[in-house]
């Protein structure tokens, strides 16, 4: 009971540092969000498909429909500008003029995992595209 070794300060500091919240990468997230909004405004489904995560693309595709066809059918909001950006680990959230985007870092780059999202009173956002 009385023999445990004090070995604290270093790891507490590491713990605090490890939890340092909004990580670097905000600029890269903003660039992806800007590209996403431009593609949405231009109704460029091919560009949108290049910006989504593999999981989101897969969830959008139904039956024989390709990603380009599926995203072309969605009327995703594209109003700017990019507003508040929050980055937590490999996940990010971006407020835009008329949307809330969710992004995931995949293969070293940021991709959109959720778009066309509407806040719900209780529970997660309801997103037209998510995956």
């Amino acid at each position, binding site marked *: 009971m009385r023999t*445990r070794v004090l070995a*604290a*300060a270093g790891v*507490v500091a590491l713990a*605090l540092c490890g939890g340092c919240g909004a990580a670097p990468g905000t600029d890269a997230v903003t660039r992806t969000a800007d590209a996403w909004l431009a593609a949405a405004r231009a109704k460029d489904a091919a560009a949108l498909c290049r910006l989504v995560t593999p999981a989101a693309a897969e969830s959008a595709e139904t039956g024989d429909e390709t990603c380009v066809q599926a995203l072309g059918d969605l009327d995703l909001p594209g109003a700017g500008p990019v507003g508040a950006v929050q980055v937590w680990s490999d*996940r990010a959230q971006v407020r835009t003029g008329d949307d809330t985007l969710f992004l995931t870092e995949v293969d070293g780059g940021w991709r959109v995992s959720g778009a066309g999202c509407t806040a719900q009173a209780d529970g*997660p956002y309801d997103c037209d595209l998510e995956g």
Partner: protein
Amino acid sequence: MKRLRDHGLSLFFGALFLLALVGESLAGVASFNNEQLTSGGDPVSYWQYVTSSSFAADVAENWQSEYLQFFLYIFLTVWLVQRGSVESKELDKVGTESDEEQKVGRYATADSPAGARAGGWRTLVYSRSLGAVMGVIFLGSWLAQSVAGRASYNARQLADFSDPVSWPGYVTSADFWNRTLQNWQSEFLAVASMVILSIFLRQRGSPESKPVGVAHSATGQEG
């Protein structure tokens, strides 16, 4: 060899601590990467994991509860006693005891620590230094848990298409208190078990037990 023997307890538990921490990190990175794959994220390297908020929160939440346990135990055993328990001092010694009993100030001996001989505020602080340091480490670890836990929680929130929370929001959340209290309850149970079981059970040769032949009612005796 004699030096090793003289410090065996510290060395053994120090080594166990490091081994357990490495084991936790290895199991943790495997578990974390499983979750990453199911939530559409990339696997992380071992180094990325051990510097992540997820690992920091897991480590800190266990640390804070351990140090809380010792902080409370050190302070409460000044005032609370348990008849028959090896973890309790003698029943008539409740409180901080006299300077003579504690060998401080003019009752200090030649080999007393400087803090016991100094008198004044230095002795006052030194007389409470063990509990105070445990308390500070507890608070530091708990703070670290809240900061790292919030970062980890917010990453999960975003993966679930939910809003991140502020620090005040996190420290009043179910996640924070669930993580905190599940650690606290086990620590308090362990202390209560030790206090009570040491009344009736013995471990021959251990200072955590009374000598085998000592009566159940004897209090404050170590084997």
